[in-house]
């Protein structure tokens, strides 16, 4: 446990030194301005998407930049000749992504509370943020670990975002009939957004239950089956 804490502290210190946290806070600060300038209804409508952007989509970019910087320095390789287990290193990295995600949750949700009053259910949103970060970093890690550098990862990442957003768009412009709307929930990002929406307005219960299970299932499968193995492989190859 002590070692775990030590590793997490190390990850966060690096995020600070590489100015990755600064960048994360900067993005959240832009959201704060948007929230401050919006009226109550718009802020509530936007809020869930903004939190999703930070917790889901931004976290992958931040994780990726941190990872490739470390890759360049070869420090991951250096951990191989220490007694530390690699799964602990991976968990520390996930925790550092959590740290950034919750930081921006505090900033964005906090500014909604300040500018527009207490309208968000706090406990559920914390739980949902946790799920969204876990899912998106699991998918993100697969992209990162299968890319040679940051640019290669970005290209794959764009593809992922398009794929995840496409069903949402199709529903929005009414190309997809209403009875197939449930298919949009197969996009983890959309499922996350639905969860965040449920903290500010009523959403059908089945959608919430489905989304929670789905977002728990993805990291539950990806991390142990795919991500960890690839992580070890990349660490050894250096």
């Amino acid at each position, binding site marked *: 446990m002590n070692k775990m804490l030590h590793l997490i502290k190390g990850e966060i210190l690096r995020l600070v030194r590489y100015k990755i946290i600064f960048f994360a806070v900067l993005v959240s600060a832009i959201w704060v301005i948007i929230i401050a300038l919006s009226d109550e209804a718009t802020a509530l409508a936007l809020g869930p998407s903004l939190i999703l952007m930070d917790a889901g989509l931004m976290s992958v970019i931040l994780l990726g930049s941190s990872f490739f910087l470390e890759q360049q320095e*070869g420090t991951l390789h250096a951990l191989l*000749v220490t007694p530390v287990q690699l799964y602990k290193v991976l968990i520390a990295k996930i925790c550092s992504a959590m740290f950034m995600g919750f930081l921006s949750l505090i900033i964005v949700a906090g500014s909604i509370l300040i500018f527009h009053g207490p309208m968000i259910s706090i406990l559920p949103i914390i739980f949902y943020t946790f799920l969204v970060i876990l899912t998106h970093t699991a998918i993100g890690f697969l992209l990162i670990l299968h890319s040679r550098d940051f640019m290669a990862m970005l290209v794959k990442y764009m593809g992922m975002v398009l794929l995840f957003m496409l069903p949402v768009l199709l529903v929005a412009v009414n190309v997809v009939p209403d009875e197939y709307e449930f298919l949009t929930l197969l996009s983890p990002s959309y499922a996350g957004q639905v969860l965040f929406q449920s903290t500010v307005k009523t959403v059908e219960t089945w959608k919430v239950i489905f989304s929670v299970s789905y977002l728990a299932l993805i990291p539950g499968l990806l991390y142990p089956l795919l991500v960890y193995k690839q992580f070890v492989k990349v660490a050894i190859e250096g």
Partner: protein
Amino acid sequence: MSNAFVVKELRFKYPKNNDDTIQGISFQVEEGKIFGLLGPSGAGKSTTQKILSKLLEDYSGEISYYGKDLKNYHKEFYEEVGVGFEMPVHFNKLTALENLKYFAGLYKTNIDYIELLTRVGLYEARNQLVGEFSKGMKVRLNFVRALLNDPKMIFLDEPTAGLDPKNAKIIKDMILEFKKQGKTIFVTTHLMGDVEQLCDYVVFMHKGRITETSTVRDLKMKYGKKELKIEYYNPDGLKSETYPLDKIGTNEAFLNALKKNEIETIHSGETTLEDIFIKVTGDVDNE
């Protein structure tokens, strides 16, 4: 005297390559001694070190560490083993001290690394970002990092490469002190000065094979040419001649040369390790 490592018929091939990089080598690393692995660039020295330090796994042959198959050791192996990489690896945006603290925190036991940092002359620079370090500073920090857990088995891949003579001497003195404390040290190098001053015995490697196993003294005896070389000026210009050291006092040609000429220099032709290095590796190239 017990062995830290016993290596038998070690073979290794990088997945991407066609040929074996290590082609069946056998040797022992004695406990409490300094073992030197020598050889020209690309011989497979670093590869061998990586195999012994459990970084490369898919080898064939047998390696035992203190009598137990190396493959049966897991992460606990690194509690008592220290590894210095060939290329210094650090977090560039962290200070020297932060780097050491981070890695030290991964071990159960720690050496007094502030003292080591002072010894290698980096104490003043401890709060400087490693990214701003000179090459030699990075090499010295890399050395300290390999010792953080006060290891009883130390791997050092070219520990003095890129250091000025003064700093190289500090590092070498420290290595000799570690030996006095009973630690086993595995050094990879192609610097002959290091070998002469450090190694109890050496293994020469070339193209993935071992070409010599010996002590430094025995090597010199085996390859040493006992001869004397003089240089002098005569009307034709600078001349040099070589005479066998055997019965030199009664060698007429030599004595005449001394009498008749203005001698510039006299060298005993004791073979240097450099010569041996070139000879040992050259022999293989000509096979």
